């Protein structure tokens, strides 16, 4: 049983023990995209820990007893499951294995107390690719082998967050097959970060890339705690067709106590664009590469390393809103040129750049 799987050595057949998020990081790393290095603790480790401590059946029974219509029942079972897992501790052997992998990552990145993100990557036996965005815990700026091992344990427990249970119920995924892989990935200190959609979320225009960006760590954007700057970039021409600079009053920043905390942004930076045109172009290129790799519209998370200035890809998953809708069609595009010209003349498209109604 492989306990540690490095992103750089990712094989598609590992997906069931990695969960969607870690598999995606592995895939993107393999595709040569600038993903920060890291490794995954296989979901098998989670299964083994439960089995070794005799918890498998107990938790299955807890979950089997949940009444999906009763939030109180979900909360009670979740809380009990998290308690059980939190209390089991981690075997010395696994802690050592994780510690060794962390040490290797530290030496690879040239920082003996490398800050890492410890991220949940849930998996379902019947849905190996399912994405559980935001259902489970993530720990930022974790340093040291003990803290990493502790983060892994807490991620395991977060398999049974109320929203995680509810999500699986809602999707009809079995609770029994659910397991947790955990990703441990180098963390950079971003000067700005955010998300990018490889289509215009307002109208589904696939020729556009919409970027939301704000100061500091991307969590402020992902959680929606800040109104980000928004840029619309044409995929083919690379032109920035729309830029909306928002009042970015809050950022997640590294504090003196070496933790990532939401703080108020000083007045002088609030309404300043958080990306230069070159950076906007670099983010758009990165998103486009991810889309080209997956051959479908993507929703990516990115960050700009404040030291190297490099744009890093933190996550890429299929865009789900427009991809499920019928495509906005040329539709009225009439093949017969004369008929079409008459229609164009009778219903002229306004050949003007789109006005910015967001600023």
């Amino acid at each position: 049983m492989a306990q540690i799987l490095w992103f750089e050595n990712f094989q598609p057949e590992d997906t069931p023990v990695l969960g969607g998020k870690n598999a995606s990081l592995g895939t993107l790393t393999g595709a040569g995209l600038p993903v920060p290095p890291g490794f995954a603790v296989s979901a098998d480790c989670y299964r083994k820990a439960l089995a070794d401590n005799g918890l498998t059946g107990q938790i299955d029974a807890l979950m089997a007893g949940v009444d999906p219509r009763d939030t109180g029942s979900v909360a009670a079972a979740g809380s009990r499951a998290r308690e059980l897992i939190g209390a089991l501790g981690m075997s010395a052997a696994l802690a050592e294995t994780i510690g060794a992998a962390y040490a290797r990552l530290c030496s690879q990145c040239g920082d003996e107390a490398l800050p890492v993100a410890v991220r949940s990557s849930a998996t379902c036996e019947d849905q190996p690719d399912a994405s559980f965005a935001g259902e489970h815990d993530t720990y930022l700026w974790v340093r040291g082998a003990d803290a990493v091992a502790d983060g892994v344990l807490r991620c395991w427990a977060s398999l049974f967050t109320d929203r995680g249970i509810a999500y699986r119920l809602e999707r009809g995924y079995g609770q029994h097959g659910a397991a947790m892989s955990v990703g441990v990935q180098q963390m950079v200190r971003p000067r700005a970060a955010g998300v990018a959609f490889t289509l215009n979320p307002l109208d589904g225009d696939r020729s556009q890339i919409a970027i939301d960006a704000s100061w500091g760590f991307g969590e402020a954007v992902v959680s929606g705690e800040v109104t980000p700057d928004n840029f619309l970039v044409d995929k083919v021409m690379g032109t920035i067709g729309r830029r909306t600079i928002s009042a970015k009053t809050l950022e997640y920043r590294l504090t003196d106590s070496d933790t990532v905390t939401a703080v108020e942004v000083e007045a002088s930076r609030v309404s300043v664009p958080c990306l230069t045109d070159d950076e906007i172009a670099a983010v758009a290129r990165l998103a486009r590469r991810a889309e080209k790799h997956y051959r479908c519209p993507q929703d990516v998370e990115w960050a700009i390393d404040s030291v190297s200035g490099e744009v890093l890809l933190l996550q890429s998953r299929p865009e789900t809103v427009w991809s499920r809708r019928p495509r906005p069609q040329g539709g009225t595009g009439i093949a017969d040129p004369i008929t079409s010209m008459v229609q164009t003349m009778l219903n002229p498209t306004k050949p003007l750049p789109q006005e910015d109604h967001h600023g």
Partner: protein
Amino acid sequence: MADRFPSPFEMPTPPGAEGWQDLYAYSTVFSEDRREYEDSTFWFMDGVHTPEVIPPWDATILEFAIIGLSQYNTRHYVIPPALGVDLRFLNGYMYLSPVGVADPEEIGARVPEFAERAGYYFQNWDRLYAAWMPKVRALIDELESISFSPLPHREDMAVITEGRGTGSALDLLSTYSRLVDLTLKLWHYHFEFLNLGYAAYLDFFGFCKQLFPSIPDQAIAKMVAGIQVDLFQPDDEIKKLAQLAVELDLASRFAGSEPASEVFAGLRGDPQGDKWLAAWEQASQPWFNFSAGSGFYHSDKVWLENPDIPLGFLRTYIAKVQRGETLERPMEAVVAERERIVAEYGELIDSDEDQATFQAKLGLARTVFPYVENHNFYVEHWGHSVIWRKMRDLGRVLVDAEFLADADDVFLLSRHEVPEVLFDYYHGWAVGVPSRGPKYWPKEMTRRNGIMNALRNWSAPPALGTPPEVITEPFTVMLWGVTSDSVKQWLGGAQDDGGLSGFAASPGVAEGPARVILSADGIADLQEGEVLVAPLTAPSWAPVFGKIAATVTDVGGIMSHAAIVCREYGLPAVTGTAFGTKTIKTGQRVRVDGNTGSVTIVDS
């Protein structure tokens, strides 16, 4: 904000311009008899072609141009929703009003006719377009063959011995009439393909906007843009001559600032110099029949007659060659980029049906586009250059007859007056008595010059009358850049923050000190890295695009000359800002965003 523009009937005559109406055809001025119609109509000033006051004879070409456009819409191709464009002169400026077809039933009835007629041209485009070029070349040859000379003291003996039975004055009168007819014919040819070309292009444009609502306008233009465009040939010729001057080791001869006449005199007789001069001569026909303006004014300077203009550009290019910079446009790269753009948008189209439609419309747009891009050189530059030259020859005949003090005064006559003037000259010559002209015209010309000067100082409003709720007429939008938004902007004046908006005509963002240039004469002042701010630009300004950072114009849409040239040169451009030259002052730092069509004054 007002909901209408001033009535043409509220416009006072500028002091000193009283009687200006008599210099223009009676049918082209606002009048009480048609007041009801004229007052309820929307008129916009054609700043694209004629930003300045229009001398009376120059109005000829404008009337011919507009009537050509109109007849093709109305009577030839039966464009379903559009008739022609009505025209008026007010205080010497031209106002236009596109006429739509209001009745939906009539529009419907026009559709099958349009399908048959336009369809024929689209189906046979290559063959018909192949015939166009020889046709227009033959017309220009005929224009070139025209000659005006003073009436002879005696008719030649040959008139007697050959039993011709007619005299020189008839020739003079009929030659003028032929010049006018050929001018009208030139404008027929101009619109033989243009309206259809625009219709096909707009169709592709509209389809791209449906597929990709946020696609930049210039991306669509780039997909159909030609690679070898005749409009850029004059500039390319200057580049070749710059290269040749360096190769022949003649660069130092161009180093100073002497006028062309001196530089060329210095080259003559020297074997290398003669070789270069021969190359110059060869390039100049036809390529230096190139106007430094829009070509619609007799006063627009033509390279052929003003070699100092191309010489200035030549000097810039020679300096570049000497610095080791390459002048050639990277054709292969341009082709590759065009194909990349098409392929990448193409990849983003999901359905096979849309894909096929996209390819078909692109194909047709590319078929028609060479005409859209090329006709301008043959008509507005070459054809007009010859027409102005021949009219000036006629002016010299009238100077010789002591009717006029200056050959250019001929342009202060309307085209209808010219036969009358020639007949007066004829009368004196035939009868053997003094014509009235020498007593009458010099004084009248003083008066008319006074009127023109008074009109020049008038600030023409961008529009008159009642605007329609939406502007949909495709040519108005495409060619003149007049849209519902620009009308709104004109009504509201410039933005409060001093910012301007217009068409995102050529992509990119640039910042630099502004240089406001109101006419071609000012372009020599442009410094490296400046932002050119002008009412409009002419394609012949091409060589200055090598040193400026961006362009802002008052008028013009995405297919205006400035837009085309800037895309070619990879410079950001915002066109149709309406108030650029009024809002921006030379020396102010401005930021031009050619992606969004906005211009910001960064500091004063």
